[in-house]
């Protein structure tokens, strides 16, 4: 492919405060190519797209369109340069018709040229190979059809390069299929597509080249055909050269017989609002003194599973139990009362940022800190001081929790949970964004709880973390469990294949 790239990025850097989200990214899209960007949540994909589309300005780096440098300061500039973007949240006015929405995108002074627009929109849909009635209202279209309208709209605006941000996240499988057919037609006519995803099988199916983004950097760009999904999974989550490093502090009872099941997830399914199945018959048991890890690329249902266990969401079917108590659809207070400690992925979403450390520490059980009708502030302070000392939190009781570092905030959450001696713990991405010391501390605390007999359900994207801590590993893909393996005997290759969507049974003798 010796042709000039449609769009090329050189050395794009972008930081928010001290956080470097894009670190010298080089990337290009050639005519007729689908170039996939693969990366975890937080790897910097979305920021990169926002830079290309003019929604944010990079700190350094340059963008070339058709070989000539351009300055893209707003989406208007991007559209003028022939770049179109479709995100998961459609920019459509629902009570208006398709044609009216298309006209909106290029409205100027004076009466709109309805007939011209109708003709050009018909050309765009023909190029896309889909049939869209321009006079139907957006709200009467399915999600997949709305997405096609968005794509047709960018073509109508003259896009030569299409950026699609996780386009299948909201689609049911049939719609995803139709989308892929449409994309193939577009590239056949010389357009370029930048396809952002963290779903390996899609990338493998649709793209020509793939770039893997990790911690703000492109770790590799390669032809899609030259790598297996398992290799891509490893690139994406990072690999250590060393063999699996089992944590030598893993001592204690370990998994025991069925009598000691503490957390039971029984045939849980969840349907999303677009009709897409987010969890599909998930069935798991965590025993006393066991760490069961859920491995998988993020966005495959982990967050929904955690929400259901935390009492924040009701499954469509199935049951969740802690010990003998059914906590399906229970409130967070009831869940905590059953002895389940929750350390969620979204730290800021599980505390009240503008309240103090001490207030957050007691927010779940204010009933215990009462003196008559009043809050017993002295007891709250005592509890905070005790937990701050016990968990080595670097903060004063009156500090605003939102101002703490990720590590310290995680320690506060850990303290809030572990102070209650929970018999079951749900912990998601416990070390994401933490420095090595804080991450190490969190691991040590979890292992200590395991030794004391707690059942721990660990949701993580970090294979190193999983292999160091877990007794068994369940791999989740597209809302379903691909298989459950023994952490001591599994291999990264086996986990990688399951993370890419191969069920354990299909691996045959490979394990």
């Amino acid at each position: 492919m010796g042709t000039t790239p449609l769009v090329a990025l050189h050395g794009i850097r972008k930081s928010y405060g001290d956080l470097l989200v894009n670190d010298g990214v080089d990337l290009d899209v050639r005519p007729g190519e689908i170039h996939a960007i693969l990366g975890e949540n937080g790897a910097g994909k979305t920021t990169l797209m926002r830079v290309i589309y003019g929604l944010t300005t990079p700190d350094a780096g340059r963008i070339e369109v058709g070989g000539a440098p351009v300055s893209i300061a707003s989406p208007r500039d991007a559209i003028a340069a022939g770049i179109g973007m479709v995100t998961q949240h459609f920019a459509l006015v629902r009570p208006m018709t398709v044609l009216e929405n298309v006209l909106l995108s290029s409205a100027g002074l004076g009466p709109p040229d309805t007939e011209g627009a109708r003709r050009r929109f018909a050309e765009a849909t023909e190029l896309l190979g889909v049939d869209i009635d321009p006079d139907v209202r957006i709200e009467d279209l399915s999600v997949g059809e709305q997405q096609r309208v968005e794509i047709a709209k960018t073509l109508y605006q003259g896009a030569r390069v299409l950026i699609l941000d996780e386009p299948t996240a909201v689609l049911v499988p049939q719609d995803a299929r139709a989308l892929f057919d449409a994309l193939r037609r577009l590239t056949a006519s010389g357009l370029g597509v930048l396809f952002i995803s963290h779903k390996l099988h899609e990338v493998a199916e649709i793209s020509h080249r793939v770039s893997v983004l990790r911690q703000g950097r492109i770790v590799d760009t390669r032809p899609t055909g030259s790598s297996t999904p398992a290799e891509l999974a490893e690139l994406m989550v990072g690999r250590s050269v060393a063999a699996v490093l089992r944590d030598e502090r893993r001592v204690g009872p370990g998994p025991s017989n069925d009598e000691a099941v503490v957390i039971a997830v029984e045939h849980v399914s969840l349907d999303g609002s677009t009709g897409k199945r987010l969890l599909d018959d998930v069935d798991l048991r965590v025993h006393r003194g066991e760490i069961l890890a859920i491995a998988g690329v993020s966005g495959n249902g982990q967050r929904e599973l955690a929400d259901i266990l935390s009492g924040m969401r009701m499954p469509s079917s199935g049951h969740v139990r802690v010990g003998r108590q059914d906590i399906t659809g229970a409130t967070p207070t009831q869940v905590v009362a059953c002895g389940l400690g929750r350390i969620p992925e979204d730290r800021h979403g599980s505390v009240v940022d503008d309240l103090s450390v001490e207030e957050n520490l007691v927010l779940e059980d204010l009933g215990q800190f009462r003196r008559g009708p009043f809050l017993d502030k002295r007891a709250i302070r005592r509890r905070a001081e005790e937990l701050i000392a016990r968990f080595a939190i670097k903060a004063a009781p009156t500090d605003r929790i939102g101002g703490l570092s990720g590590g310290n905030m995680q320690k506060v959450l850990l303290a809030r949970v572990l102070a209650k001696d929970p018999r079951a713990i749900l912990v998601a991405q416990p070390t994401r964004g933490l420095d090595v010391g804080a991450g190490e501390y969190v691991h040590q605390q979890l292992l200590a709880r395991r030794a004391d007999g707690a059942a721990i359900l660990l949701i993580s994207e970090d294979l190193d973390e999983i292999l160091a801590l877990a007794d068994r590993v369940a791999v989740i893909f597209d809302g379903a469990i691909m298989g459950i393996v023994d952490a001591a005997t599994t291999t990264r290759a086996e986990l990688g294949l399951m993370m890419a969507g191969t069920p354990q049974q299909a691996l045959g003798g490979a394990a």
Partner: protein
Amino acid sequence: MRMLLRGTAPRWLTPALVALAAVLTLALTAGPIRLGGASPGAAFTYYLVRPLTTSYTVLEVLLASTPLIFTGLAALVAFRSGYYNIGGEGQFIAGAIAVTAVTLAFPALPLVVSLPLGLVAGAVAGAAWGLIPAVLRVRRGIDEVVTTLLLNPVALLLLQGLLNGPWRNPTNQFPESAPVGAGWELPRIVGGSRLHLGYVVALVLAVLAWVVLTQTRVGLTSRAVGLAPKGAAFSGIPIRRTLLGAALASAALAGAGGAVQVLGLQHRLTAEVSTGFGYTGIVVATLAALSVPAAIAVATLLADITVGAESAARALQLPPQMGKVVTATLLLCSVGVLVFRHYTLALRGRRRGARAAGGAS
């Protein structure tokens, strides 16, 4: 220039910003005052200083602050839980109507009965006026800013309908209710002044509100809901119940204020029972940054400007509305300037030292 989030603000910052807002207000209103034909210096002396120089005018200021304390507390209680009750005006009027109905039904009651009965009637009516928007918000997620606001003119029309219809004064045919019975009039608390017991009631309710908001579980949970509904829900705080409670307490405070205004000052129901006290209460709560002690101070300041504006109108021939211009400018300047408690300005192009996010070596 661009705005950057700042981590923690130094202690001196808030007082400095308040001072800056005051200076800006003086500078911005000097022009209109000059156009009104008065010297800005003299006008500000009338607005801010003169009312505080004689004991009679000081007591007038306290009298004028009474309804503002009620409506200010009402806005504050709701806003702290993230319920934006803009309906204080309508709830205030509902309270005034209800207390009048009770006085007409039981004209002769001793104060020990009439005062609590009047307060309860006003509070219940206010809460009832606030109930529909609160339920719509909690059950259906319908924005309370719109619904509470739209019920304000409904309350005013109801008031006007009653005064021009069934409650028209039978002796002089004015559109105002018959005077309340003597047992219903709140006693004056300082000889030679119109200041009445309602001011003490306002202060007692303020202390009560302060205790509940800062010293009890309900205060902490409602604040948590207002600051971060998601985090509060994760901690097991019942969001809907908290919002509903805050909405009704807020509306009840506004309604009690309406009752006190009828019983303490007007001694009858008129169409002018509220001169926008419900709306000014929002200004009080906002300027006070949702703190109860600060709300009393702000209510007193706004009352000071109101009393001063009346005398300035007489002495300097300035339009009395100029007081509202000053108050409104103060609000805009304060809200605008206090943003910098959380943000700092940076010149464009100046970059902070970026640190690599994890080495990939």
